[in-house]
C-alpha cells in the first residue's frame, strides 16, 4: 500500500499506509493523527482538514475544484500549498507523499 507522511506542527512525523482511492484525510483520521479534525467526514463541508503539501509533491496532485478553492479561503493560515486532505485521493503515484499539518484547524 502507498505511504503518506504527515508531519505535525511540532515536527513529529507519522508515516502510515493509505489505501488507494481513500483520501489523505481518511488515512489520518482512522489512524488518529492529531491535527486533522474533518468534522464533516469528508463532504468538503467544514474546512477542518487543511494540510500543507510538500512542494516536491504539489505538481503531482489534481487541481483544486471550485468547491475546495472556496472552502480553503476559510481555512486558518492558508498558504499557497494548502489543500483540503479530504479532496486528495491516494494513488500509487503518490507513494511517499509528505504533508504538513497546521497548528489548528479552527
Amino acid at each position, binding site marked *: 500500500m502507498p505511504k503518506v507522511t504527515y508531519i505535525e506542527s511540532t515536527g513529529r512525523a507519522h508515516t502510515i499506509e493509505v489505501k488507494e482511492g481513500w483520501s489523505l484525510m481518511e488515512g489520518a483520521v482512522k*489512524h488518529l493523527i492529531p491535527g486533522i479534525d474533518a468534522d464533516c467526514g469528508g463532504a468538503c*463541508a467544514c474546512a477542518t482538514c487543511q494540510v500543507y503539501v510538500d512542494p516536491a509533491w504539489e505538481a503531482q496532485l489534481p487541481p483544486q475544484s471550485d468547491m475546495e478553492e472556496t472552502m480553503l479561503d476559510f481555512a486558518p493560515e492558508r498558504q499557497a500549498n494548502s489543500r483540503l486532505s479530504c479532496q486528495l485521493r491516494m494513488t500509487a503515484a503518490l507513494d511517499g507523499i509528505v504533508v504538513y499539518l497546521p497548528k489548528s484547524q479552527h
Partner: protein
Amino acid sequence: MLAPRRKQQKQSDMSEKIVIIGAGQAAAQAVQSLRNDGFDGPITLVGEEPYPPYQRPPLSKAYLLGQFERARLFLKGDDYYPNAGCELWLNTRARAIHRAGRAVELEDGRMLPYDKLLLTTGARVRKLNCAGADLPGVHYLKTIADVDALQAAFTAGRRIAVVGGGYIGLEVAAVAAKRGLKVTVFEAMDRLMARAVSPQLSAFYAGEHEKAGVDLRLKTGVEEIGGHGKVEWVRAGGTTYDADMVLVGIGVVPCEELAREAGLACEDGIVVDRNARTGDPHIWAAGDCTRHVGREGHAIRLECVQNAIDQAKHAALAMTGKPKIYSEVPWFWSDQYDLKLQIAGLARPSDAIVQRGDPAARKFSVFHLRDGKVAAVEAVNAAPDYLIGKKLIAEGTRVDPARLADLSIPIKQVAG
C-alpha cells in the same frame, strides 16, 4: 499504527471504569476525547450492531449510490480501539442500568460494573403505522444492514415509493432517480423538509426533484401498502400507486428506554444539563438520544453529527473533571443531486428572511435574522455564506440586511 497519547493520569482515576452504551458517532468521539482529556482507566463500549462506530451520513448518499466502500464508513481504524484501551462489545444489547450498584445488565444476564456511565444510544427509526407496513419490500434507512438490503433492490426501471419528504427520503429519492428508478415521494405536510428548512428552500428543492423526474405528492399521507407477499402498491390520498418497494423516512425517536426504566428523567430524549450530565452524578448522555438546553436557552433535541461530536466532547470534559458549558452552533448538511445544502443555527418562523443570490443559479443562501442578528443560515452550493453565517451566529454580530443581500459585497465583508 499510532497509539493514542495518554497523558499522566491522576491517582484518583486509577481504578475508575467507564462504560459507554451505544456504539455510534458520539461514542467514537467520546472514546477519543476521554483519552485526550487524560482519562486512563478501562473503557468498555457496548453496541447492538455487529460493527464498530461508523459514519451514518454517507449511508443515504454515496454508500447507497455504490460509490463508497463499506470499510470507509468506519470512524476509526481496526486497531484503534485495542490501542486506546477500549474493549468493544458488539452484537451486545444492554437490558438495564442498576444505578444503586453502578452496573449495566446485559441481555445475556452478564453484569458490567461502571464508575461512570455514558449513554450514546442514539435514535431509532419511527415505524410506519398502516396496513401492510410489515410487508417484505418495505425498507427503512438507519444502519449499514438497512442500506445493503435497499441497495440490493435498486434496479433501474423499478418503482420506489418514498414515504416522507425529509432529508432521508429526499436523499434516497435523489440516488434512486440517478440510478434510473421511478420515484414517487409522499409527504403529509404541504412542503418538503418542513421540519428542517425554510419555505424558500422547500420550494427550491421541490423544483429540483421534479426536474429529475421525481413525482412529488405533497399533503398526501400513505394509508395502506398492499401486495401478494410483497409490496405491489401503495394507497395514498385515496389513490393507488404501483410500487415495487417502499422506503420510509418519517423521522426517528430517541432510544431512551434504558434511562427511563432506570428512573432518569426523559422528555422525548434523555434529559441532560449543559455538561451532558443526567440527574445521576455518575451518568452522562450525548448525541441524538438527549434533550438538552441549547444555546438559545430552551430544551431541544438535535439529530445530527455536530451534536454527536460536540456533546460527546463536552461529556468527556465533564467526566474527566473539566466541565465546560456546551453552547456550540448546530450545523447540518444534505447532499441531493449536485446540490450541497449546508445549514447552521436553528431558524424560527418569526425570523426575518434575507435571500442572497438567485435560486435559478442553483447557488444561493437564505439568512434568518432575529433582533438584527443572524440566527440561522441555509446555503445551497454556497459554502462561504454558510461558513461566514455560522461565525456571525456564534459571535452574535449585528448585520445590515441590505448588505447581506448585496452580492457585490463579498460575504466576508458583509459584517463590515
